[in-house]
């Protein structure tokens, strides 16, 4: 393990139609003291880097202090943003000399090569904000990476999107396997499992190796039924309340319209009360339980084993709401007891 991922806040300025953040949860901000305490222990345990996710990091009221703290503790860091207040607020913080030397990369979410597509998913002016942020990063020689969620809206322009990312200087461009949410299904934006399978193969055959940057597909391609998830090997995920959560995807994920988060097995430890060392031990115990369940009953060799994130979502009980959508092909694929045995905690 080498990366600590923090969610500084769950607040976001956007309501992206494909987002799986639980909007029923009250807004919260991660206390700086918690970050300091975690980093002081993480450094001694050999962690090297920090990743800041969200919510939207630009809405964290102590972002400058947070970045300076990370830099002063000797960690390199990456942050992911939707470009909100980037030129006037985030960029000047990143360009502070002691902070800049610790910036490993800045990630942007770009979901379309055209404004209509991207803004159709993320809201007005978002394309402009992302483009402006990426251009400024390139001009200031800050390394860039891109994340794009595959939807029915952008499936037809993935080539343009990949070429745009390469042209804007993104060193890596990750195409994200989408996670079902009620809004995603209701709006008809979620490709069917079969369409996703075809799309992933198409990306593999037509995009990977074609552009100058690295193209990846996230949330897919695990060999066999073993749980060899890269995130579990490399990352610890600390939510905005200071909890160690088993995986960033499981953290405060929507579980249906208007239902606030109630933690299940994904909560590993409250880092305000438990030492990081003890929390890591619990994390690995949990990983062992999950792997055992996957080996003993959870694997569907032709389906879910290729999408380990979906397998975990089901295992941790985050997909029960799909029963309200009996006509969705995802319900048959993920919930049907005959195709994959349930393994709730």
């Amino acid at each position, binding site marked *: 393990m080498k990366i600590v991922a923090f969610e500084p806040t769950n607040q976001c300025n956007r309501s992206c139609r494909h987002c799986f953040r639980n909007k029923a949860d009250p807004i919260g901000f991660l206390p700086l003291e918690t970050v300091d305490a975690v980093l002081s222990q993480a450094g001694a345990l050999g962690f090297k880097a920090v990743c800041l996710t969200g919510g939207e990091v630009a809405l964290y009221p102590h972002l400058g202090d947070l970045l300076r703290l990370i830099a002063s503790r000797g960690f390199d860091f990456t942050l992911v943003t939707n470009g909100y207040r980037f030129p*006037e607020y985030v960029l000047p913080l990143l360009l502070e000399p002691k902070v800049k030397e610790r910036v490993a990369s800045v990630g942007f979410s770009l979901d379309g090569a055209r404004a209509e597509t991207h803004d159709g998913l993320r809201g007005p002016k978002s394309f402009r904000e992302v483009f402006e942020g990426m251009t400024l990063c390139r001009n200031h020689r800050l390394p860039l990476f891109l994340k794009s969620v595959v939807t029915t809206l952008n499936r037809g322009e993935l080539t343009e999107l990949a070429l745009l990312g390469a042209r804007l200087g993104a060193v890596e461009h990750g195409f994200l396997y989408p996670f079902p949410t009620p809004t995603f299904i209701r709006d008809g934006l979620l490709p069917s499992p079969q369409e996703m399978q075809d799309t992933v193969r198409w990306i593999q055959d037509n995009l990977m190796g074609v552009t100058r940057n690295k193209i990846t597909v996230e949330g897919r391609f695990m060999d066999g039924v073993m749980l060899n998830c890269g995130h579990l090997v490399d990352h610890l995920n600390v939510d905005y309340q200071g909890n160690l959560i088993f995986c960033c995807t499981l953290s405060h994920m929507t579980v249906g319209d208007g239902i606030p988060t109630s933690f299940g097995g994904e909560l590993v430890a409250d880092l305000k009360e438990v030492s990081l060392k003890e929390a890591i031990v619990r994390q690995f115990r949990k990983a062992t339980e999950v792997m055992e369940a996957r080996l003993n009953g959870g694997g569907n060799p032709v389906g879910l084993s290729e999408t380990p994130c979906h397998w975990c979502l089901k295992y941790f009980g985050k997909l029960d709401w799909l029963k309200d959508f009996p006509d969705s092909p995802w319900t048959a694929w993920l919930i049907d007891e005959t195709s994959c045995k349930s393994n709730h905690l």
Partner: protein
Amino acid sequence: MPSYQLKDKCLFVDAFVYDEPNKEPKKKTKPDKPPTTGKIELAHVMDKNPTPAKYLMLNDAAAFIARFIVMGVDTKDIPEILKSEYGSQVTNPVADVNAVVAMLFPSYLETPRTSPRPYQAPKDEGKGTHSGIYDLDFRVNWFVTGGFKGPL
């Protein structure tokens, strides 16, 4: 389509004030008459090469487009950015971008180059004989402050 950059001693000044990050940026107002000294309130490009310096004030849309031009964004990408900002109000974004390029080029913008290297007519650089053995170069690059070491 090309990317542009400002000429030496030319600058672009935006019309918004971002001093208070939690508030909407304040829009500056148009002066009663073009200023010859002091602060120019509207967005503008200025060329400090001549004396007195010359400037061109821009309205909101032109300044928005100019901001991306001087950032070095490829002009073929700017129409999509324009559509993202203004939505259906924009009817012909390509023409609007071309209009702003025409306002700024060649007075304030460098001639765009597709390659950072100047093109030269092809010619050989001379023949010779060689032992075929190269010396290994163990010199160390000390000129970077902070003592960074790397082979030249």
